[in-house]
Protein backbone atom coordinates (compact mmCIF):
# COMPACT_ATOMS: atom_id res chain seq x y z
CA UNK A 1 0.00 0.00 0.00
CA UNK A 2 3.08 2.26 0.11
CA UNK A 3 4.31 4.24 -2.87
CA UNK A 4 8.03 4.64 -3.61
CA UNK A 5 7.98 7.84 -1.54
CA UNK A 6 7.12 5.84 1.58
CA UNK A 7 3.67 7.45 1.67
CA UNK A 8 0.32 5.71 1.20
CA UNK A 9 -0.76 4.95 -2.36
CA UNK A 10 -4.04 6.83 -2.83
CA UNK A 11 -5.76 4.19 -4.91
CA UNK A 12 -4.79 1.30 -2.68
CA UNK A 13 -6.00 3.33 0.29
CA UNK A 14 -9.32 3.97 -1.45
CA UNK A 15 -9.65 0.27 -2.27
CA UNK A 16 -9.08 -0.63 1.40
CA UNK A 17 -11.59 1.94 2.67
CA UNK A 18 -14.32 0.80 0.26
CA UNK A 19 -13.86 -2.93 0.97
CA UNK A 20 -17.03 -4.55 2.32
CA UNK A 21 -18.84 -1.20 2.04
CA UNK A 22 -22.32 -2.69 2.12
CA UNK A 23 -24.93 -0.01 1.41
CA UNK A 24 -22.60 2.86 2.27
CA UNK A 25 -23.10 5.95 0.09
CA UNK A 26 -19.92 7.64 -1.11
CA UNK A 27 -19.38 11.24 -2.23
CA UNK A 28 -16.01 11.94 -3.85
CA UNK A 29 -14.56 15.40 -4.27
CA UNK A 30 -13.69 16.60 -7.74
CA UNK A 31 -10.46 15.44 -9.36
CA UNK A 32 -8.39 12.52 -8.14
CA UNK A 33 -10.76 11.29 -5.38
CA UNK A 34 -13.51 10.99 -8.03
CA UNK A 35 -11.14 9.05 -10.32
CA UNK A 36 -10.08 6.88 -7.35
CA UNK A 37 -13.55 5.70 -6.33
CA UNK A 38 -14.36 5.09 -9.99
CA UNK A 39 -11.21 3.01 -10.47
CA UNK A 40 -12.25 0.81 -7.55
CA UNK A 41 -15.69 0.30 -9.11
CA UNK A 42 -18.32 2.71 -10.40
CA UNK A 43 -21.77 2.07 -8.95
CA UNK A 44 -25.06 3.79 -8.13
CA UNK A 45 -24.01 4.34 -4.51
CA UNK A 46 -21.13 6.57 -5.70
CA UNK A 47 -21.43 10.27 -6.45
CA UNK A 48 -18.17 11.37 -8.04
CA UNK A 49 -18.15 15.16 -8.34
CA UNK A 50 -17.04 17.07 -11.42
CA UNK A 51 -17.29 20.50 -9.82
CA UNK A 52 -18.72 22.36 -6.86
CA UNK A 53 -15.29 22.63 -5.28
CA UNK A 54 -15.61 23.01 -1.52
CA UNK A 55 -19.01 21.33 -1.39
CA UNK A 56 -18.25 17.63 -0.94
CA UNK A 57 -18.48 17.50 2.86
CA UNK A 58 -21.72 19.50 2.85
CA UNK A 59 -23.28 17.17 0.26
CA UNK A 60 -22.35 14.38 2.67
CA UNK A 61 -24.07 16.23 5.51
CA UNK A 62 -27.32 16.76 3.60
CA UNK A 63 -27.35 13.10 2.57
CA UNK A 64 -26.52 11.88 6.09
CA UNK A 65 -29.34 13.98 7.59
CA UNK A 66 -31.79 12.74 4.95
CA UNK A 67 -30.81 9.08 5.44
CA UNK A 68 -29.78 8.72 9.09
CA UNK A 69 -29.77 4.91 8.90
CA UNK A 70 -27.27 4.73 6.03
CA UNK A 71 -23.54 5.26 6.34
CA UNK A 72 -22.22 8.16 4.28
CA UNK A 73 -18.54 8.57 3.41
CA UNK A 74 -17.01 11.67 1.85
CA UNK A 75 -13.60 11.12 0.26
CA UNK A 76 -11.97 14.32 -0.86
CA UNK A 77 -8.69 16.13 -1.33
CA UNK A 78 -6.91 18.66 0.85
CA UNK A 79 -7.50 21.52 -1.60
CA UNK A 80 -11.21 20.74 -1.85
CA UNK A 81 -11.58 20.50 1.95
CA UNK A 82 -9.69 23.76 2.49
CA UNK A 83 -12.02 25.59 0.09
CA UNK A 84 -15.05 24.60 2.17
CA UNK A 85 -13.37 24.47 5.57
CA UNK A 86 -16.28 26.21 7.31
CA UNK A 87 -18.27 23.02 6.70
CA UNK A 88 -16.37 21.46 9.60
CA UNK A 89 -18.13 23.86 11.96
CA UNK A 90 -21.52 23.29 10.32
CA UNK A 91 -21.10 19.51 10.51
CA UNK A 92 -19.80 19.55 14.09
CA UNK A 93 -22.93 21.40 15.22
CA UNK A 94 -25.27 18.97 13.42
CA UNK A 95 -23.46 15.86 14.81
CA UNK A 96 -24.52 13.29 12.17
CA UNK A 97 -23.52 9.88 13.59
CA UNK A 98 -23.57 8.30 10.11
CA UNK A 99 -21.16 10.73 8.38
CA UNK A 100 -17.42 10.17 7.85
CA UNK A 101 -15.03 12.44 6.00
CA UNK A 102 -11.63 11.23 4.82
CA UNK A 103 -9.22 13.75 3.32
CA UNK A 104 -6.65 12.18 1.06
CA UNK A 105 -3.95 14.74 1.68
CA UNK A 106 -1.22 14.93 -0.96
CA UNK A 107 -0.42 18.54 -0.01
CA UNK A 108 -0.91 19.69 -3.61
CA UNK A 109 -3.52 20.85 -6.12
CA UNK A 110 -3.19 17.76 -8.31
CA UNK A 111 -5.36 18.73 -11.27
CA UNK A 112 -3.77 22.10 -11.97
CA UNK A 113 -0.04 21.43 -12.02
CA UNK A 114 0.79 20.23 -8.51
CA UNK A 115 0.93 23.62 -6.82
CA UNK A 116 1.33 23.33 -3.06
CA UNK A 117 -1.67 23.62 -0.76
CA UNK A 118 -1.67 25.04 2.76
CA UNK A 119 -1.25 21.54 4.26
CA UNK A 120 2.20 21.45 2.61
CA UNK A 121 3.07 24.33 4.92
CA UNK A 122 1.88 22.84 8.18
CA UNK A 123 -1.84 23.57 8.21
CA UNK A 124 -3.33 20.70 10.22
CA UNK A 125 -6.82 19.72 9.07
CA UNK A 126 -7.31 17.28 11.96
CA UNK A 127 -6.65 20.06 14.46
CA UNK A 128 -9.10 22.27 12.58
CA UNK A 129 -11.76 19.54 12.76
CA UNK A 130 -11.11 19.08 16.47
CA UNK A 131 -11.28 22.80 16.99
CA UNK A 132 -14.65 22.83 15.26
CA UNK A 133 -15.88 20.25 17.74
CA UNK A 134 -15.51 16.97 15.83
CA UNK A 135 -14.14 14.76 18.61
CA UNK A 136 -13.76 11.53 16.63
CA UNK A 137 -10.71 12.00 14.37
CA UNK A 138 -7.71 10.10 12.98
CA UNK A 139 -4.43 11.04 11.36
CA UNK A 140 -3.14 8.21 9.19
CA UNK A 141 0.27 7.86 7.56
CA UNK A 142 1.02 4.11 7.61
CA UNK A 143 -0.54 0.99 6.05
CA UNK A 144 -0.98 -0.69 9.45
CA UNK A 145 -3.30 2.18 10.48
CA UNK A 146 -5.67 1.71 7.56
CA UNK A 147 -7.63 -1.16 9.09
CA UNK A 148 -8.48 1.02 12.09
CA UNK A 149 -9.50 3.81 9.68
CA UNK A 150 -11.82 1.39 7.85
CA UNK A 151 -13.34 0.34 11.18
CA UNK A 152 -13.88 3.92 12.28
CA UNK A 153 -15.65 4.78 9.00
CA UNK A 154 -18.04 1.87 9.43
CA UNK A 155 -18.56 2.26 13.20
CA UNK A 156 -21.38 4.81 12.90
CA UNK A 157 -19.98 6.96 15.71
CA UNK A 158 -19.66 10.11 13.69
CA UNK A 159 -19.20 12.70 12.76
CA UNK A 160 -15.81 11.20 12.01
CA UNK A 161 -12.99 13.10 10.32
CA UNK A 162 -9.66 11.71 9.15
CA UNK A 163 -6.64 12.88 7.21
CA UNK A 164 -4.57 10.28 5.39
CA UNK A 165 -1.25 11.55 4.09
CA UNK A 166 -0.81 10.11 0.60
CA UNK A 167 1.81 10.00 -2.13
CA UNK A 168 1.39 12.91 -4.53
CA UNK A 169 1.93 10.90 -7.73
CA UNK A 170 -1.04 11.04 -10.12
CA UNK A 171 -2.63 7.72 -11.08
CA UNK A 172 -4.06 6.68 -14.46
CA UNK A 173 -7.31 8.53 -15.19
CA UNK A 174 -10.45 6.46 -14.68
CA UNK A 175 -13.29 8.81 -15.50
CA UNK A 176 -16.81 8.41 -14.10
CA UNK A 177 -19.93 9.26 -16.15
CA UNK A 178 -20.13 12.99 -16.88
CA UNK A 179 -23.92 13.21 -17.03
CA UNK A 180 -24.85 14.81 -13.71
CA UNK A 181 -28.55 13.96 -13.97
CA UNK A 182 -27.61 10.28 -14.30
CA UNK A 183 -25.26 10.41 -11.32
CA UNK A 184 -27.97 11.97 -9.17
CA UNK A 185 -30.84 9.78 -10.38
CA UNK A 186 -28.96 6.51 -9.94
CA UNK A 187 -28.06 7.30 -6.32
CA UNK A 188 -31.63 8.38 -5.54
CA UNK A 189 -32.89 5.12 -7.00
CA UNK A 190 -30.32 3.15 -4.99
CA UNK A 191 -31.63 4.86 -1.84
CA UNK A 192 -35.38 4.97 -2.52
CA UNK A 193 -36.03 2.43 -5.25
CA UNK A 194 -38.32 3.29 -8.17
CA UNK A 195 -40.17 5.80 -5.95
CA UNK A 196 -37.16 8.09 -6.49
CA UNK A 197 -38.54 9.07 -9.89
CA UNK A 198 -42.17 9.62 -8.94
CA UNK A 199 -43.89 12.59 -7.43
CA UNK A 200 -43.11 13.08 -3.75
Amino acid at each position, binding site marked *: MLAASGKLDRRELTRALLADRGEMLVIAGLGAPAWDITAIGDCAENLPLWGGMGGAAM*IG*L*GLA*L*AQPKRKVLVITGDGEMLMGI*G*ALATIAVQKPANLSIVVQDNEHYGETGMQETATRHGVDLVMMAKGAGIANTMFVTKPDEVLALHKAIHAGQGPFFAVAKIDATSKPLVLPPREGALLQARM*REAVMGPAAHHQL
Partner: protein
Amino acid sequence: MDQYAIDKAPDAAAEWPDQIYSLLKTHNITQVALVPDAGHSRLIRRCLADNEMKVVTLTTEEEGIALLQGAWLGGAKGVLLMQSSGVGNCINMLSLSIMHRCPLPMLVTMRGDFGEFNPAQVPMGNATQTVLEAMGTLVHRADTPEDIAPTVNATIRLAFNTFRPTATLIGQRVLGAKTFGKD
Protein backbone atom coordinates in the same frame (compact mmCIF):
# COMPACT_ATOMS: atom_id res chain seq x y z
CA MET B 1 -35.60 42.54 18.01
CA ASP B 2 -32.63 44.52 19.26
CA GLN B 3 -33.38 48.20 18.62
CA TYR B 4 -29.76 48.65 17.52
CA ALA B 5 -29.83 45.75 15.02
CA ILE B 6 -28.96 46.98 11.57
CA ASP B 7 -31.53 44.88 9.68
CA LYS B 8 -35.31 45.17 9.84
CA ALA B 9 -37.49 42.28 10.95
CA PRO B 10 -41.08 41.92 9.73
CA ASP B 11 -43.75 43.77 11.65
CA ALA B 12 -45.48 41.61 14.30
CA ALA B 13 -48.75 42.01 12.41
CA ALA B 14 -47.27 40.78 9.13
CA GLU B 15 -48.73 37.44 8.08
CA TRP B 16 -46.27 36.43 5.40
CA PRO B 17 -43.57 34.82 7.59
CA ASP B 18 -46.17 32.41 9.00
CA GLN B 19 -47.56 31.85 5.52
CA ILE B 20 -44.09 30.83 4.29
CA TYR B 21 -43.76 28.42 7.23
CA SER B 22 -47.12 26.85 6.31
CA LEU B 23 -45.95 26.46 2.72
CA LEU B 24 -42.77 24.70 3.86
CA LYS B 25 -44.97 22.24 5.77
CA THR B 26 -47.36 21.79 2.83
CA HIS B 27 -44.44 20.97 0.56
CA ASN B 28 -42.90 18.57 3.08
CA ILE B 29 -39.68 20.58 3.43
CA THR B 30 -37.52 18.90 6.08
CA GLN B 31 -34.13 20.61 5.67
CA VAL B 32 -33.90 24.37 6.14
CA ALA B 33 -30.46 25.74 5.32
CA LEU B 34 -29.76 29.32 6.23
CA VAL B 35 -27.51 32.19 7.01
CA PRO B 36 -29.76 34.37 9.16
CA ASP B 37 -31.44 37.52 7.96
CA ALA B 38 -33.65 39.74 10.08
CA GLY B 39 -36.31 39.51 7.39
CA HIS B 40 -36.49 35.75 7.95
CA SER B 41 -36.19 35.92 11.76
CA ARG B 42 -39.73 34.84 12.59
CA LEU B 43 -39.72 32.10 9.96
CA ILE B 44 -36.40 30.82 11.36
CA ARG B 45 -37.89 30.68 14.88
CA ARG B 46 -40.87 28.69 13.62
CA CYS B 47 -38.58 26.23 11.81
CA LEU B 48 -36.36 25.84 14.89
CA ALA B 49 -39.43 24.99 16.96
CA ASP B 50 -40.46 22.26 14.50
CA ASN B 51 -39.05 18.82 15.36
CA GLU B 52 -39.71 17.56 11.85
CA MET B 53 -37.35 20.14 10.36
CA LYS B 54 -33.57 20.08 10.40
CA VAL B 55 -32.38 23.67 10.57
CA VAL B 56 -28.78 23.93 9.41
CA THR B 57 -27.07 27.23 10.10
CA LEU B 58 -24.29 27.64 7.54
CA THR B 59 -20.96 29.43 7.77
CA THR B 60 -21.46 30.65 4.18
CA GLU B 61 -24.47 30.41 1.89
CA GLU B 62 -22.76 28.21 -0.71
CA GLU B 63 -22.73 25.41 1.86
CA GLY B 64 -26.50 25.41 1.55
CA ILE B 65 -26.41 24.63 -2.19
CA ALA B 66 -24.27 21.56 -1.44
CA LEU B 67 -26.32 20.57 1.62
CA LEU B 68 -29.55 20.55 -0.36
CA GLN B 69 -27.87 18.59 -3.16
CA GLY B 70 -27.13 15.93 -0.57
CA ALA B 71 -30.64 16.15 0.88
CA TRP B 72 -32.17 15.52 -2.54
CA LEU B 73 -29.81 12.58 -3.16
CA GLY B 74 -31.26 11.11 0.03
CA GLY B 75 -34.88 11.86 -0.85
CA ALA B 76 -35.37 14.90 1.39
CA LYS B 77 -36.65 18.30 0.28
CA GLY B 78 -34.99 21.48 1.45
CA VAL B 79 -35.04 25.24 1.10
CA LEU B 80 -32.27 27.84 1.39
CA LEU B 81 -32.98 31.09 3.27
CA MET B 82 -30.60 34.00 2.93
CA GLN B 83 -30.09 37.71 2.42
CA SER B 84 -29.28 39.05 -1.04
CA SER B 85 -25.61 39.56 -0.12
CA GLY B 86 -25.39 35.78 0.40
CA VAL B 87 -26.40 35.12 -3.18
CA GLY B 88 -22.97 36.29 -4.25
CA ASN B 89 -21.42 33.55 -2.14
CA CYS B 90 -23.38 30.86 -3.99
CA ILE B 91 -22.54 31.44 -7.61
CA ASN B 92 -20.09 28.68 -8.54
CA MET B 93 -21.79 26.16 -6.24
CA LEU B 94 -24.99 26.59 -8.26
CA SER B 95 -23.15 24.53 -10.90
CA LEU B 96 -24.11 21.50 -8.79
CA SER B 97 -27.84 22.13 -9.11
CA ILE B 98 -27.64 22.74 -12.86
CA MET B 99 -25.29 19.81 -13.49
CA HIS B 100 -27.36 17.29 -11.53
CA ARG B 101 -30.81 18.85 -12.12
CA CYS B 102 -31.30 19.26 -8.39
CA PRO B 103 -34.40 21.12 -7.15
CA LEU B 104 -33.20 24.14 -5.17
CA PRO B 105 -35.69 26.74 -3.94
CA MET B 106 -34.11 29.87 -2.46
CA LEU B 107 -35.97 32.53 -0.48
CA VAL B 108 -33.97 35.71 -0.52
CA THR B 109 -34.68 38.85 1.48
CA MET B 110 -33.39 41.88 -0.39
CA ARG B 111 -30.95 44.51 0.83
CA GLY B 112 -29.44 47.24 -1.30
CA ASP B 113 -32.80 47.45 -2.96
CA PHE B 114 -35.58 49.93 -2.06
CA GLY B 115 -34.42 52.90 -0.02
CA GLU B 116 -31.22 51.26 1.26
CA PHE B 117 -29.19 53.20 3.85
CA ASN B 118 -25.96 51.16 3.84
CA PRO B 119 -23.81 51.76 0.74
CA ALA B 120 -22.02 48.40 1.15
CA GLN B 121 -25.29 46.54 0.53
CA VAL B 122 -25.98 48.18 -2.82
CA PRO B 123 -23.48 46.48 -5.19
CA MET B 124 -24.65 42.93 -4.40
CA GLY B 125 -28.27 43.89 -3.93
CA ASN B 126 -28.27 45.52 -7.34
CA ALA B 127 -26.69 42.44 -8.93
CA THR B 128 -28.66 39.72 -7.12
CA GLN B 129 -31.25 38.94 -9.77
CA THR B 130 -28.77 39.27 -12.64
CA VAL B 131 -26.23 36.84 -11.20
CA LEU B 132 -28.86 34.29 -10.18
CA GLU B 133 -30.28 34.36 -13.70
CA ALA B 134 -26.81 34.14 -15.17
CA MET B 135 -26.48 30.85 -13.30
CA GLY B 136 -29.71 29.42 -14.66
CA THR B 137 -31.95 30.23 -11.71
CA LEU B 138 -35.60 31.13 -12.37
CA VAL B 139 -36.26 34.28 -10.34
CA HIS B 140 -39.51 35.90 -9.22
CA ARG B 141 -39.89 39.01 -7.10
CA ALA B 142 -42.44 39.77 -4.41
CA ASP B 143 -42.68 43.47 -3.55
CA THR B 144 -45.90 43.52 -1.54
CA PRO B 145 -46.82 41.41 1.52
CA GLU B 146 -49.76 39.89 -0.37
CA ASP B 147 -47.46 38.71 -3.17
CA ILE B 148 -45.05 36.80 -0.97
CA ALA B 149 -46.94 33.57 -0.22
CA PRO B 150 -48.12 32.92 -3.80
CA THR B 151 -44.65 33.71 -5.16
CA VAL B 152 -42.91 31.44 -2.64
CA ASN B 153 -45.41 28.71 -3.44
CA ALA B 154 -44.65 29.04 -7.14
CA THR B 155 -40.90 29.06 -6.45
CA ILE B 156 -41.02 25.84 -4.44
CA ARG B 157 -43.30 24.12 -6.97
CA LEU B 158 -41.15 25.21 -9.90
CA ALA B 159 -38.02 23.81 -8.24
CA PHE B 160 -39.42 20.39 -7.34
CA ASN B 161 -41.60 19.94 -10.43
CA THR B 162 -38.97 21.00 -12.96
CA PHE B 163 -35.66 20.14 -11.21
CA ARG B 164 -33.67 23.38 -11.12
CA PRO B 165 -32.66 26.29 -8.89
CA THR B 166 -35.43 28.83 -8.36
CA ALA B 167 -35.66 31.93 -6.19
CA THR B 168 -38.12 34.36 -4.67
CA LEU B 169 -36.64 37.78 -3.99
CA ILE B 170 -38.58 39.47 -1.18
CA GLY B 171 -38.23 43.17 -1.92
CA GLN B 172 -36.87 45.60 0.62
CA ARG B 173 -40.04 47.62 0.07
CA VAL B 174 -41.87 44.96 2.12
CA LEU B 175 -39.55 45.24 5.10
CA GLY B 176 -38.54 48.87 4.78
CA ALA B 177 -35.01 50.21 5.09
CA LYS B 178 -33.63 51.00 8.53
CA THR B 179 -32.11 54.45 8.59
CA PHE B 180 -31.21 54.99 12.28
CA GLY B 181 -33.17 58.26 12.29
CA LYS B 182 -30.67 59.70 9.78
CA ASP B 183 -33.04 60.25 6.87
